[in-house]
């Protein structure tokens, strides 16, 4: 076997491998005689069929098999000899083969880059934390109270007021014709809750029980139902009940109704929810900042094949999304080329970060423990109540799925590890500032995990 390097350009290596015909022939002959020992052919006892006959029958497929094997072995050897670490499956191009001729094939390999050594201690990060403002908690509590207040019919019948709950029968018409979903009976409406078409609730003010009224509204342009957008409609309504909101004291009894022991406990629960939300935001910002630093400070060449793969994935997702929403690139004021350019950059960043993170992870022996996997699995199982057993079985049977669970955990742990080593300053910010841009970040995190996963498994 002969391996020659045709060209090497950065991470791209182009090799040429020649396997002599004699090698292949002896291998085929060996394979055939091995086959002859067990072959069953009609007219012959098992293993007694002559090799020449077998060659006629199976020669082609055996040769094919041997060729495949030689190519496989050849590329492995070529890669080992040149000390390459392929990032992706190497591309093989057979240039010539014929019976009795040498097998020649070309190998296009993209080398896995060695990410630069990252000086973790030199990374400076700011951790943005937010206090939970007392007003926010109070407001949340007020909302809870408001949502849970009891309604009762007033002692003296009176016309409906703001904040009252009115029960109505209604029949909606556009141009005098009833439309789908425009009719209903006994629908409770809280005046001032803003749940219905703007203007509808306001016109209920001043009605009294038993009164019939025609309400005129115009559906807003951005209304959910396509056939109603911007249409003017009339609703024939009949008020059947008017109830006024009762007062609720925020006391232990009220807390108990919500499943909490006391007001303090309720307050704690609300605070806990905010704390968790802010904590997530804090972590996301920190991670985002860390990834930015890593991407900016440690540039290195990444295999174009991997970038291409990632780009294709992003692009397919994006175009599918756009198609579903009926958008085009023109809507966003940019040409398709510009968009492609932009997403190519994103793909490259993701690949680079994925490689870098997985490299840091392996170098520092960050490992995902079985226990952590188990926890993730349980979390998954809880998303499908009643089918926990099936979920566990699914993961037991699909190592690839398990790997998908492992990736984000691994990534999180690597990030934790880096944050631990890095210089981190803590800075207080307002909650609004903290929550800004958080949604956007979340999307990216997931993809880095995939990139990291790819490099590890290859």
């Amino acid at each position, binding site marked *: 076997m002969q391996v020659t390097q045709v060209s090497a350009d950065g991470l791209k290596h182009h090799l040429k491998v020649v396997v002599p015909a004699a090698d292949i022939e002896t291998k085929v002959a060996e394979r055939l005689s091995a086959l002859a020992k067990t072959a069953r052919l009609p*007219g*012959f*006892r098992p293993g*007694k069929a*002559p090799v020449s*006959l077998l060659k*006629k029958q199976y020669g082609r497929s055996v040769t094919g098999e041997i060729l495949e094997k030689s190519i496989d072995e050849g590329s492995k050897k070529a890669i080992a000899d040149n000390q390459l670490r392929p990032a992706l499956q190497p591309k093989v191009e057979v240039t010539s083969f014929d019976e009795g001729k040498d097998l020649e094939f070309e190998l296009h390999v993209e080398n896995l880059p060695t990410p630069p050594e990252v000086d973790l201690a030199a990374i400076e990060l700011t951790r943005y934390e937010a206090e939970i403002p007392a007003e926010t908690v109070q407001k949340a509590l007020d909302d809870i109270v408001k949502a849970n207040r009891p309604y009762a019919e007033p002692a003296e019948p009176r016309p409906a007021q703001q904040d009252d709950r009115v029960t109505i029968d209604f029949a909606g018409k556009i141009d005098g014709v009833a439309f789908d979903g425009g009719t209903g009976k006994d629908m409770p409406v809280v005046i001032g809750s803003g749940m219905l078409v703007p203007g509808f609730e306001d016109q209920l003010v001043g009605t009294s029980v038993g009164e019939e009224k025609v309400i005129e509204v115009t559906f807003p342009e951005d209304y959910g139902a396509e056939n109603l957008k911007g249409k003017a409609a009339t609703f024939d309504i009949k008020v059947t009940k008017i109830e006024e909101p009762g007062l609720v004291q925020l006391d232990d009894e009220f807390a108990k109704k919500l499943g909490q022991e006391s007001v303090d406990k309720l307050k704690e629960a609300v605070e806990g929810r905010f704390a968790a939300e802010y904590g997530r935001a804090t972590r996301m910002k920190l991670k985002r900042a860390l990834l930015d630093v890593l991407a900016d400070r440690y540039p290195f060449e990444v295999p174009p094949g991997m970038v291409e793969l990632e780009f294709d994935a992003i692009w397919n997702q994006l175009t599918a999304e756009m198609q579903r929403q009926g958008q085009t690139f023109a809507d966003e004021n940019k040409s398709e080329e510009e968009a492609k350019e932009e997403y190519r950059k994103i793909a490259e960043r993701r690949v680079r970060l994925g490689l870098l993170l997985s490299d840091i992870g392996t170098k520092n022996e960050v490992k995902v423990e079985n226990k952590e996997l188990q926890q993730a699995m349980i979390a998954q199982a809880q998303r499908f109540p009643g089918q926990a057993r099936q979920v566990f079985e699914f993961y037991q049977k699909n190592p690839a799925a398990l790997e998908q669970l492992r990736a984000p955990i691994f990534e999180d742990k690597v990030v934790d590890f880096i944050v631990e080593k890095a210089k981190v300053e803590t800075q207080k910010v307002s909650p609004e500032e903290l929550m800004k841009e958080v949604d956007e970040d979340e999307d990216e995190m997931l993809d880095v995990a995939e990139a990291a996963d790819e490099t590890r498994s290859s």
Partner: protein
Amino acid sequence: MNQERIYDIILAPVVTEKSTRISELNQVTFKVRGDAAKPEIRQAVEKLFNVKVTAVNTMVTKGKTKRFKGKAYRRSDVKKAIVTLEAGQTIDVTTGI
């Protein structure tokens, strides 16, 4: 013998351990029509495979009597011809015509 009959006489080669063994003696085995005569077989083989035949031996293997659902029936008889070729000549029976 007319020309079409040449193509009708020889039905198939016999490829078995035994036939492979006697191929070393320059003999080739065929299944032939039941009513084929030795001179006909010689002529057919010579024409079809473009070889010289020195001898033709034939045999008829009688069909076995079998039973299916209690009813007896008989398998067809098969006539086989072992054709000896002139030294140095061969027929590759596995490739077909």
